[in-house]
């Protein structure tokens, strides 16, 4: 199967600090790839390089290639198109201070969709996909910040879905949520992978085990081991991986 994202010998610097060392990995389409590792290991940094959110950080330098469907995203790729195709869900839910409807319609609107009927359809579809439609369909005009944390996060996922992405990056999407909300997001991820390629950074080992198809373990900016999640969790090759996932360090 052809890789959705292909990362080749990627080095990343924050100023003088080298955050990623020659990372190479292949992300398969319609799979959930979990990036795990101790804090500061470079997993979030790697995630940010995939939709060039790292561009916002002053003094960051990228060396190496990231191919998305065969195109180098650090080449001539239009950054707006890239972020449209590779959406991102953040650590803590960050709905905008506007209505639920406007939150979802925000993306389509900035990409030029103005027709009310089309927007209505997109909003409903995205909310349904994010499994939150039934809960909030009667208060679309209500403030998004009035929702519970778990609902807010699913709303944020719906907001990403509304721009019809191809890949969804998730940066510890459940770290701010309670167990039930976490379960819901995990179920949602399992459902979404049928249509999207998902890359998730998580500190929660169990979560990586539960939801991902393959897992990449990072340590000090190096990709220590990557493989099928069953393999990583049942019989990893690297002793460091085993120590980390069994909680012996990190």
């Amino acid at each position, binding site marked *: 199967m052809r890789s959705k994202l292909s990362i080749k010998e990627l080095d990343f610097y924050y100023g003088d600090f080298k955050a990623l060392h020659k990372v190479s990995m292949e992300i398969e389409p319609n799979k959930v790839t979990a990036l795990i590792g101790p804090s500061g290991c470079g997993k979030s940094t790697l995630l940010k390089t995939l939709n060039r959110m790292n561009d916002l950080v002053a003094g960051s330098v990228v060396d190496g290639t990231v191919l998305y469907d065969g195109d180098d995203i650090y080449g001539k790729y239009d950054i707006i198109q890239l972020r449209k195709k590779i959406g991102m869900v953040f650590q803590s839910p960050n709905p905008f201070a506007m209505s639920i409807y406007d939150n979802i319609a925000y993306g389509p609107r900035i990409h030029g969709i103005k027709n009310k009927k089309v927007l209505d359809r997109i909003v409903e579809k995205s909310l349904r996909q994010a499994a939150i439609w039934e809960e909030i369909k009667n208060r679309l005009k209500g403030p998004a910040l009035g929702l519970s944390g778990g609902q807010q996060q699913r709303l944020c996922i719906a907001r990403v879905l509304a721009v019809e992405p191809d890949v969804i990056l998730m940066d510890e999407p459940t770290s701010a949520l309670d167990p*039930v909300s976490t*379960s*819901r997001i*995990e*179920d949602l991820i*399992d*459902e979404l992978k049928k249509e999207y390629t998902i890359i998730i950074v998580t500190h929660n080992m*169990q979560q990586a*085990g*539960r*939801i991902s198809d393959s897992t990449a373990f990072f340590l000090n900016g190096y990709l220590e081991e990557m493989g099928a*999640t*069953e393999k990583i*969790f*049942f019989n990893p090759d690297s002793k460091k991986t085993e120590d980390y996932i069994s909680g012996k360090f990190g």
Partner: protein
Amino acid sequence: MSTKTRIHFTNVMEELNKEILMMGVYVEEALKKAIDALKNQDVNLAEEVIKEDERINALEIELFDKVAIVLATEQPVATDLRHLMGAIRIITDLERAGDYAVHIAEGAVRLAGETYLTPLRQIPEAGDEARQMLRDALTAFVNSDEGLAREVAARDDILDKLHKKLLKKMLKYMNKDDEADIEQATTLISLARFLERLGDHVTNICEWVIYSKTGEHVEL
């Protein structure tokens, strides 16, 4: 929050249950074929049972790893955890049951050329009963049905009785001092003994069903 969560895990568990049932079906089939082969003195059928046991053995390993991976990746707790622990023991019991079916088939091969001293009654009867018990025990496991499990375990007495009955009957022939007869009687006694032991494994399965449901270890 009324809607269900952890849909993926639920699906995995259902799949696992299905596969255990499937393994049960294979064992049942092997047992039925072995008894039929014995009854009809059909060597081909008996050979088939012996050959097909590989499938059951492979399935045991496969399911064992599957349970281990579910444990590693899903971190189940409480009932889910006990269910998986039970599953590990149950697939072992199933594999043993499969081995007994093979033993019976081997007996059938050995007895294929001989004329039975008396028409086989208790062994096919015990075989049918054991199959039924196996099926019910696995149903009880999949449905976490404690009552059914206890009921199935109680039926182990039937196997014991049939075993004793056959034993008594065979003792008559063994007193006659005909070497061939004694050998056949001994073989039949050991076949009945295998069935009785198979029943004990089914009882074990029932015990694991109760364990996975209640967390208590019981002796049935």
